[in-house]
């Protein structure tokens, strides 16, 4: 029952954020930008003027699957981001914001890259260890079960840290995106507001993901503290 309080609000928040980003993307995909530049044109202009010519641009299937890969210095754009729309412009500029972070060795991007490995392990193994530990604690005497569960919590907190470190990375990429678009004269004042709608909606999904992870971690801790007390 308690799990509902920890799980339902963040889950609904995540669904709300997903709905917001999809509806903003759909809305502004229908709005052509004033200069009729498609995603590749925007990428070309920004890369040339921002000293990011070395970034490779590739297509990727799916909707909103766009990303920048810092290892290969590749920006991958989905079909929707290749159209001459305001939404495409926002997304391309955002991904190039990550490329600019990478170029400047942005501290949070570096931190995120540093913990991605342990975070991946933590997100998969952390919960499993937690539940195995709880089962052991329930069916056997001795502290081993709870110790395993706490180890799971510590591992899982690496995944939580990852979602938290992602926030400054994504917010900063969106701020850079706006600046780049203005600096290069690619947006009108009205378009800047529309770009903001797409970028803010996208940022909300990362906030929701972080809230979900933090809430799950708090639930794990809450359960284990309760289990410790009942053991005393």
């Amino acid at each position, binding site marked *: *029952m308690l799990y509902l309080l920890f799980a339902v609000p963040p889950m*609904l928040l995540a669904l709300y954020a997903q709905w917001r980003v999809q509806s903003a993307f759909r809305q502004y995909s229908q709005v052509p930008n004033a200069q009729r530049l498609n995603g590749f044109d925007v990428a070309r202009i920004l890369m040339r003027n921002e000293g990011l010519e070395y970034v490779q641009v590739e297509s990727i299937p799916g909707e909103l699957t766009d990303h920048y890969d810092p290892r290969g210095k590749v920006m991958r754009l989905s079909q929707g981001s290749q159209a001459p729309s305001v939404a495409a412009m926002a997304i391309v500029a955002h991904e190039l914001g990550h490329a600019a972070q990478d170029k400047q060795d942005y501290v949070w991007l570096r931190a995120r890259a540093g913990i991605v490995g342990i975070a991946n392990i933590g997100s998969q193994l952390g919960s499993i260890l937690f539940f195995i530990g709880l089962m052991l604690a329930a069916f056997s005497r001795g502290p081993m079960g709870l110790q395993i569960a706490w180890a799971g919590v510590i591992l899982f907190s690496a995944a939580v840290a990852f979602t938290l470190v992602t926030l400054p990375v994504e917010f900063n990429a969106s701020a850079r995106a706006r600046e780049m678009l203005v600096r290069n004269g690619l947006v009108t004042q009205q378009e800047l507001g529309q770009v903001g709608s797409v970028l803010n909606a996208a940022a909300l999904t990362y906030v929701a993901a972080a809230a979900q992870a933090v809430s799950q971690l708090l639930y794990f801790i809450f359960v284990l503290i309760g289990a410790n007390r009942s053991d005393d």
Partner: protein
Amino acid sequence: MEEDLRRRLVYGIISLILTSLAAWLATYLTNKILGEPEE
């Protein structure tokens, strides 16, 4: 049984209130940091 139902209802209502608060706060902070978008 009735007590259980009442408790579930209270938990459900609290969940919805928390969701609304979280959604408002997340949107407010995002807009504060990134700037107000066009509505």
